């Protein structure tokens, strides 16, 4: 199906889990520069990664004209409770925006991009934010444990300032039991790999790709394919008659295969380097396959993908990975109880989700919100203020090994927000050795604990990135 309207991708952001697990470390050996995968750390999940990708995507862009928010993932903590509404609250998007989660299939991301484009093209939404995130945690010892990858990508869809217009889309739906997770399953199950590859990936991908219009003489087409490994990629490329230089390089040895986020991640990488006169075709498989064809409208010269790949912390021991992903038995499982008071969470949701504090009429910034100003003593003279996008500096810290954590010791400190209050919080992403007083910090949305066996989210301070 070809599309007449001028809707498409306005901007994009990429977050790849910064922890990288070398295959050698996973095998219990030392890291030695071989292949590795991105692994979401103990304080990360699809929601936190989606938030990070979305913050990068929306940097310096208005948020009040986003009328549709879609969160696409196959790895989300709740069967009942929406992710898109949570993330909308974190990002401070309008409460009147439509929100939806799309899941259950590896092509969830591609379908989310189609639906968002339809809504924008039809005029029902001015702009749409699509976030696609997945964590591919394989069972210990499985092929997926080595080859999976954890990443998120976010796209802003609109009709103005479009970088790549969606010109065609196609779907091929298929019933197949090739890979699956039942309710409550932690790890993905799969049938024999040759069956998965042929009927789960190759045939539906080829079928849907064939529905895209063929490239015009003047256009060169780049392909972003969701192949789970090199052999599958080569097979589909041969079937479609795609030459290697027409493929976006698959980051199998640096990031891994990122599930629903994989093809969209490649789409973002293609957009980074896109040239006028190019087309980008994205094909994502899963219960059939979906394909989208974009025509480049504006060259951005972005480094979204390359910077996300480069932002890297090497995992140096298998034990650290196993602890972070909670793969080993523990003396006591986390208590199955009500968890954090839902009413406290409800009252404090702006503080917890948006790092929202306040500023008194006397000028004193404060976090958390208080009724009485610590500086001037006035009551209720405050204006709410979000601090998540501010820079911070470390006032003091400790490394707490007593606090129960899968990744001890827990770095905690007091952070001075630039032109803001001080906040007592955890510090993540530290290199070896103690942090230094005064070091520059930024804020990241993280899953800080699992009380009540559900994710509890707050912000952590991270060292400022050396690259933008």
């Amino acid at each position: 199906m070809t599309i007449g309207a001028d809707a498409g991708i306005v901007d994009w952001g990429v977050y790849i889990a910064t922890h990288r697990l070398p295959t050698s470390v996973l095998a219990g050996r030392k890291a030695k520069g071989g292949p590795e995968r991105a692994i979401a750390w103990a304080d990360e999940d699809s929601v936190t990664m989606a938030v990070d990708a979305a913050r990068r995507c929306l940097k310096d862009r208005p948020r009040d004209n986003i009328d549709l928010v879609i969160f696409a993932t196959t790895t989300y903590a709740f069967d009942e409770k929406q992710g898109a509404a949570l993330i909308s609250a974190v990002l401070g998007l309008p409460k009147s925006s439509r929100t939806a989660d799309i899941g259950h299939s590896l092509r969830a991301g591609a379908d989310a991009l189609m639906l968002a484009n339809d809504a924008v093209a039809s005029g029902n939404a001015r702009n749409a934010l699509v976030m696609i995130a997945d964590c591919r945690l394989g069972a210990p010892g499985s092929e997926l444990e080595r080859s999976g990858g954890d990443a998120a990508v976010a796209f802003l869809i609109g009709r103005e300032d479009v970088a790549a217009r969606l010109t065609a889309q196609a779907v091929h739906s298929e019933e197949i039991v090739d890979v699956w997770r039942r309710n409550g399953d932690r790890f993905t199950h799969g049938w024999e790999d040759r069956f998965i590859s042929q009927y789960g990936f190759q045939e539906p991908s080829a079928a849907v790709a064939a529905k895209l219009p063929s490239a015009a003489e003047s256009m060169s087409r780049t392909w972003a394919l969701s192949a789970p490994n090199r052999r599958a990629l080569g097979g589909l490329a041969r079937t479609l008659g795609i030459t290697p230089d027409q493929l976006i390089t698959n980051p199998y040895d640096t990031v891994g295969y990122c599930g629903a986020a994989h093809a969209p991640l490649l789409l973002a990488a293609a957009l980074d380097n896109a040239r006028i006169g190019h087309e980008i075709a994205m094909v994502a498989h899963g219960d059939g396959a979906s394909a989208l064809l974009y025509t480049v409208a504006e060259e951005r010269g972005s480094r979204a993908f390359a910077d996300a790949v480069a932002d890297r912390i090497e995992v140096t021991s298998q034990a650290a990975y196993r602890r972070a992903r909670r793969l080993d038995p523990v003396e006591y499982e986390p208590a199955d109880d009500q968890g954090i008071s839902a009413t406290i969470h409800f009252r404090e949701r702006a503080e917890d989700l948006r790092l929202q504090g306040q500023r008194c009429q006397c000028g004193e910034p404060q976090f958390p919100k208080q009724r009485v100003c610590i500086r001037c003593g006035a009551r209720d003279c405050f204006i709410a203020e979000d601090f998540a996008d501010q820079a911070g500096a470390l006032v003091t810290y400790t490394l707490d090994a007593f606090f129960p954590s899968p990744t001890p010791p827990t770095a905690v400190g007091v952070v001075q927000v630039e032109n803001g209050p001080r906040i007592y919080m955890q510090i993540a992403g530290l290199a070896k050795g103690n942090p230094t007083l005064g070091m520059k910090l930024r804020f990241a949305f993280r899953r800080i604990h699992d009380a009540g066996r559900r994710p509890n989210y707050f912000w952590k301070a991270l060292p400022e990135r050396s690259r933008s």
Partner: protein
Amino acid sequence: MSLKDKVAVVGVGCSQFMENWTSSADDMIVDAVFEAYADAGIEDPNRQIDAIYCGSLYSAMGPVDVSEALKLYKPLTSVYNYCATGTEVVRAACMAIAAGVYDTVLAVGYDKPKDRGVSGPPVAFRGVRDLPATPAGWFALAAAPYFEKFGAGREDLARIAVKNHHNGTLAPKSFLKKEITIEDVLNARVISWPFGLYDCAAQTDGAAAVIVTRADLASDFPKQPVLVKAITSHCSPNPHTDPDHDFLRWKATEYAARDAYRMAGIDDPFNQIDVAQVHDCFTMTELVSYEDLGFIEKGAAKDHIASGTFELGGHLPVNTDGGLKSFGHPTGATGARMIVENVLQLRGEAGPRQVKDAKLALSHNIGGYPTGCAVSILGVE
């Protein structure tokens, strides 16, 4: 407004501080209180005691523990201020006497944390972001800025632990009677940087009791009366959100000490006070408290630790019975235990750890994030 010389301590008692696996809170309350009865010559508590003030952090039942354990059914008030609870119990008792409400009051601090099956304080999840909530983590926040500004380090903290372990060997009711070395401290497993295991107080069970009466009635009791020269309490802003805090001090101690010195008429604490029990929940807490209490200038602790100022036999001995570090820290009991030790010191009953000719003794608790501090100054003529 002052409490000075209006109230006297006439009896003290203390249970053994240890991991009392075979004793209940009731058992220890009885041990401490009956020792205090005997010390005060009280034979008929139902007639001679007018009211009870008590405090505990871990007790599920609160006041009922004390009245039922003692079978002493009197007006009973439960007091709570984190680690300053023990001193606050005595302060409340003193104020009731000074107000003319009661003549003689029993103050009891106690705790029984060792029935929980875990070492150290509880780590609880409350609000989503109230983490991590460990006392070691809170009190450690003074270390990095202090070390950077004044050039102190873990060795200086270690000397405090070594001193308090030594003093603990001289106190019959202390938990840890074991000398340690600086290397022991530096090589212990890390709890919360810069604190290793030996930088942390020993959590124990225990109870301590103090009997106070009107100063003009004190001569009716057998022992030499010990006068309350000052007993004060002060809060400070939560250091985690205080926009002005420098993390070189804990403000609550500065405020409570200032009030105590004013009440007691002290202008040179380093030379006027003869012995002090200082809240050493962690070694760093004792270090900054030397300065926050005005004993020495801010930043001078390192030199005084090296020269032995605060050791037994030094200019101002601190934590003569081993402190929280070595005597043990049953949270609600600790402030009351410090007052027991100061009374023994002022009466000259402290045995091998006796500070010669002690006339004025200070005790100090700080707790919370920390946010609350209580200080007492006792004296004999």
